[in-house]
């Protein structure tokens, strides 16, 4: 870590992580261009929580905003990690999918519109189980349709991170950005420990968790496109850059031959030091760039 990062910049930084979902979404737009759709005053709440003794929230933990980023039409979807762990329920899920579909329809009408998803979630909301899982599948389907026309950008800033089915949706993104504080993985450490024991994963070992799921590792192994400091202006800069870049020539989730060969080359008989993968996979990345 450089002195600069720990010095003046660190003290003057404007934390993005400390913002709530609504503030995060607002921060990404060109000043004064954003408006919220189906906001808290619409009071479209989860119909499933109250009957289980859980208090619903007026926005179901999902904020949708439309406006301009770098002068271009964009929609931002932000999950609120503080409500039910950012989990995907029927309402929050449908908000996401419908917003992506509307962006897709605008592109088809000749209005280029990008999408940014701010992911803070443990995955499907188990109180709405099958509707949360279905919502994830439908969101993924809509992301696949939109990303042909415009970039779908996923950012996970922390502190919840991106887990469960939503990690698969993140995998479909045109670009993925993370902070060092964020984690991205399919199965959370607790679930792995419960299913396959402490030897497989010690969920109290925070260093291990970040060594595997953390933003720095995901970036160093080429599984995400940007590592950004927890600083709002820097986050904004990264998002604007990806919006301006447009649709990538090949999406990561379509590069099957490359990633399959990487898995085939791994020694599956032992656990790895996550750093080993950095060496193996970044080498490949450099070679790819040469080609």
């Amino acid at each position, binding site marked *: 870590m450089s002195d600069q990062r720990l010095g003046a910049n660190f003290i003057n930084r404007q934390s993005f992580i400390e913002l709530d979902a609504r503030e995060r979404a607002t921060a990404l737009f060109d000043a004064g261009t954003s408006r919220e759709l189906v906001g808290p005053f619409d009071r479209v709440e989860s119909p499933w929580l109250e009957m289980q003794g859980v208090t619903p929230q007026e926005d179901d933990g999902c904020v949708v905003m439309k406006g301009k980023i770098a002068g271009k039409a964009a929609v931002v979807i932000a999950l609120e990690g503080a409500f039910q762990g950012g989990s995907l329920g029927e309402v929050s899920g449908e908000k996401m999918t419908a917003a992506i579909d509307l962006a897709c329809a605008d592109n088809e009408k000749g209005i280029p519109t990008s999408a940014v998803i701010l992911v803070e979630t443990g995955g499907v909301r188990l109180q709405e189980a099958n509707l949360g*899982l279905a919502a994830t599948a439908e969101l993924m389907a809509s992301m696949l349709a939109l990303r042909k026309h415009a970039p779908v950008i996923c950012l996970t800033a922390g502190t919840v991170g991106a887990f469960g089915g939503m990690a698969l949706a993140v995998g479909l993104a045109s670009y993925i950005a993370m902070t060092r504080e964020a984690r991205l993985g399919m199965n959370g450490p607790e679930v792995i420990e419960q299913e396959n024991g402490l030897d497989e994963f010690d969920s109290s070992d925070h260093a291990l968790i970040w060594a595997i799921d953390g933003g720095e590792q995901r970036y160093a192994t080429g599984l995400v496109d940007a590592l950004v400091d927890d600083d709002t202006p820097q986050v904004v800069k990264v998002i604007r850059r990806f919006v301006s870049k447009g649709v990538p020539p090949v999406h990561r989730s379509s590069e099957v031959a490359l990633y399959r060969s990487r*898995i085939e080359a791994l020694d599956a008989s032992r656990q*790895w030091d996550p750093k080993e993968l950095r060496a193996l996979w970044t080498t490949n990345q450099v070679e790819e760039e040469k080609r």
Partner: protein
Amino acid sequence: MSEFTGVRGTVWFRGLTGQASSMPGDPKSVLTADAPLGKDQARFLCVVPDPHARFPCARHGEVGLEEGYTLATRVREVSEQDKNTTKRPIIAIVDVKSQAYGRREETAGIFLACAAAADAYGSARLKGHPVITFVVGHALSGAFLTHGYQANRILALDDDGVMIHAMHKAAAARVTRRSVEELEKLAKTIAPMSYDVRDYAKLGLLYKLLHVSNPEKPTQQEIRKVQGELIAAIEDARSSSVDLRNRLESKGALETRKASILVRSRLEAQWREG
């Protein structure tokens, strides 16, 4: 966990294709075959247990790193081959207990392996391939998102051994801090939480429930019946849109997903205002 997991996938794969093997170079856990279905030569795919799989956490029928990328490869192969010709049907036979819960899997990015398979299925559907899912056993969580949930049409066996869910009972109870008994009681009144495929059918996500007398030993007649249903689903998929809107426009969804429908109509109206 069920004693059925793995048995049913192989049985139905063999019944529908006349074989049960993986493609050269593929792990044994992914069965792929091309077989006639009506006028088409359909591609069938299924994930089955391989006790000798390279990755120890993916030996009981879980969808792991190799399964994700293999499914992605074999689905993409079809859409590549059919680029300038009739889009063949792709049939996912589903009996998957879960994704692989392992440290190696997380380290090597299982989220991407599973996304790659979902990408392949979903992209094939968008290109016009009828993608049909047939759930014969378990269809759980991330494993179902990877293998099956991107289909135009989903069919399932009407049977107690069929389970479509976000998380298996014991884990769901732990995470929501309930006992399994409490969870089961709640599941009886709250349709999206139910572990019964007949309740799942109420959500409007299924195209059809099919009954057979013994899902582990289907008769030739029952296999022919299922083939007929798959052919009907293929025709239905070909005659409608390539997206998943049918799931939200179904009769079941009109009843159970009222909140989804409300969200969508409000969002559409407000989107146009500005």
